């Protein structure tokens, strides 16, 4: 992880306190939830009413208790051993790193935490092995359909598959120019010099992270109401998401370039644009190409889901057949997609291998 910190600064203490407090509160809530579930006869419809559940858990005493515990642990870390929060901030008690986890308090605490998470998750997601093992016949019909692809949609499916490939290609192609320009502003090594460039770096990074965090499905819904149902909306949705994705890949590549050529070109008295053109661009073009092909590959996969909500491509005809239970036709379409994705994967891997 990060280099070990020797000194406990106030900001480090606060950071560690908040992390530990959150962990302890989380553990406390899960214990409370499990106790309520196991002993207070709440087995039917655990999460039917969130309101009900919230009423059953007592937050305030838990948070206060966790805060006290976190503070105590931090105060006594010399004898008890460092807390997860301290370790996470890079501070550990002398020699603790060399001991196996089973000889540290933190190791046992984290083990307990993971186990709590597992059992709580079991309850929350309503895991039920009995139904899985006894209810198979209900799925037999679906499986039979899936193993008997129907030729009725083969032609239509093929046509829309080609549309899907073009859709993904156009989204990628449109994303290249903006991503190329923006990626230079999102590369830390090029934006360190003045406060203005640093500000731009932060702004660009924030906007791009946000854009990437929004699912392409959501972008599709936005663009469907903007330009109407069809492949164009799908292109636009994947375009926005691709810009953000490519900026991340591109800028990381720019950050890892060899600084030597940049230094040499700067030393000739070249201006900033010339330094970028001669010192940076030649180094990043091959990896950029490789990432772009990879992005096309991703877009083919994503466009299926985009099609589900009306973004064109093969997903558009898949959705109604799933809804109607036409499993034979679903099977044909799914197989077409699988073959296309597999082929794209193979080709893009081969091309990328050649480029770099």
């Amino acid at each position, binding site marked *: 992880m990060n280099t070990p910190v020797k000194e406990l600064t106030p900001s480090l203490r606060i950071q560690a306190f908040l992390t530990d407090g959150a962990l302890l509160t989380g553990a406390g809530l899960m214990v409370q939830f499990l106790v309520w579930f196991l002993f207070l006869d709440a087995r039917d419809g655990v999460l039917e009413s969130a309101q009900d559940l919230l009423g059953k858990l007592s937050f305030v005493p838990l948070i206060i208790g966790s805060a006290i515990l976190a503070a105590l642990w931090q105060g006594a870390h010399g004898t008890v051993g460092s807390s997860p929060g301290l370790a996470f901030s890079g501070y550990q008690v002398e020699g603790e790193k060399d001991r196996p986890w089973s000889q540290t308090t933190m190791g046992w605490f984290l083990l307990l935490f993971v186990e709590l998470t597992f059992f709580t998750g079991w309850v929350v997601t309503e895991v039920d092995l009995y139904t899985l093992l006894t209810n198979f016949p209900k799925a037999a019909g679906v499986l039979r359909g899936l193993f008997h692809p129907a030729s009725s949609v083969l032609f239509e499916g093929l046509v829309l598959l080609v549309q899907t490939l073009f859709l993904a290609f156009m989204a990628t192609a449109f994303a290249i120019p903006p991503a190329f320009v923006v990626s230079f502003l999102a590369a830390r090594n090029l934006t360190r010099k003045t406060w203005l460039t640093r500000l731009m770096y932060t702004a660009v990074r924030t906007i791009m992270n946000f854009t990437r965090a929004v699912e392409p499905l959501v972008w599709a819904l936005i663009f469907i109401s903007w330009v109407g149902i069809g492949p164009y909306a799908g292109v636009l949705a994947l375009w926005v998401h691709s810009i953000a994705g490519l900026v991340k890949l591109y800028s990381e590549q720019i950050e890892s370039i060899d600084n030597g050529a940049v230094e*040499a070109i700067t030393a000739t008295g*070249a201006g900033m644009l*010339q330094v970028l053109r001669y010192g940076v661009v*030649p180094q990043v073009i091959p990896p950029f190409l490789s990432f772009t092909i990879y992005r096309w590959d991703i877009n083919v996969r994503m466009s299926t889901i985009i099609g589900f909500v009306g973004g064109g491509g093969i997903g558009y005809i898949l959705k109604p057949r799933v809804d109607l239970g036409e499993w034979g036709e679903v099977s044909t379409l799914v197989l077409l997609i699988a073959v296309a994705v597999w082929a794209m994967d193979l080709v893009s891997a081969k091309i990328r291998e050649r480029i770099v």
Partner: protein
Amino acid sequence: MSETCAIRITGLEKVFPNGVRALNGVDLEVKEGEFLAVLGLSGSGKSTLLRCINRLLDPTAGHIEIFGRDITRVEGAELRALRRQIGMIFQQFNLVKRHSVLVNVLSGSLGRAGLFRSLFLSYTAEERERAQTALSRVGLGERGASRADALSGGQQQRVAIARALMQEPKLILADEPVASLDPALRHSVMRHIEALNKESGMTVVCSLHDIDLVTRYATRCVALRDGRLVHEGDPADFTIETLRHIYGAEAEFGFHG
């Protein structure tokens, strides 16, 4: 006096953001036409000193005059004009690997070239001819079309020298130019740097590790240790005592072995 002084450095200090004090009060004058060798262990401040002279690094304190002009704080167009006069040769050659040898040489003229044309790698016939002449001078006249990374290390360093020639500087900074080359190839590169000095009349400041090379090529020699100048003299007067003074007790091993 100032007309014959290519570089005049007074009280130069450089402290890096991580607190490392690389230069600690260096005073140095370099006369026009000199071939000055800079000696010192790795980490003694040689590279930092060279990079302060063409302002790839900004000094923390002190002053640097180049041909009588104080350049310690120049920025923008003035800084680029300063760098145009100073060619630099690097230990790792620092060519643009994916460009052709000829374009690498041409990039030496970027400080003068028109911005728009240079961004499209478009150069005039006159510039191409000058680049070709520079390449021929370092014995690589036939290799202009090759990709830079197709050449051997020694050849790449000669391309870097041609790039410096193309720049037509008055001063050359060479940062351990032969340290990553096969010993057998060192003289072929050093002779070209010597030619920049003797035939083209450029002042050369060159950091070196190898005492043999210093005595053979340099007209004067200074040594750095922990960011301070600890020796200055004629390379011909080298003794074991001088070396021990520069490198510390371990120098004995290197010299006898």
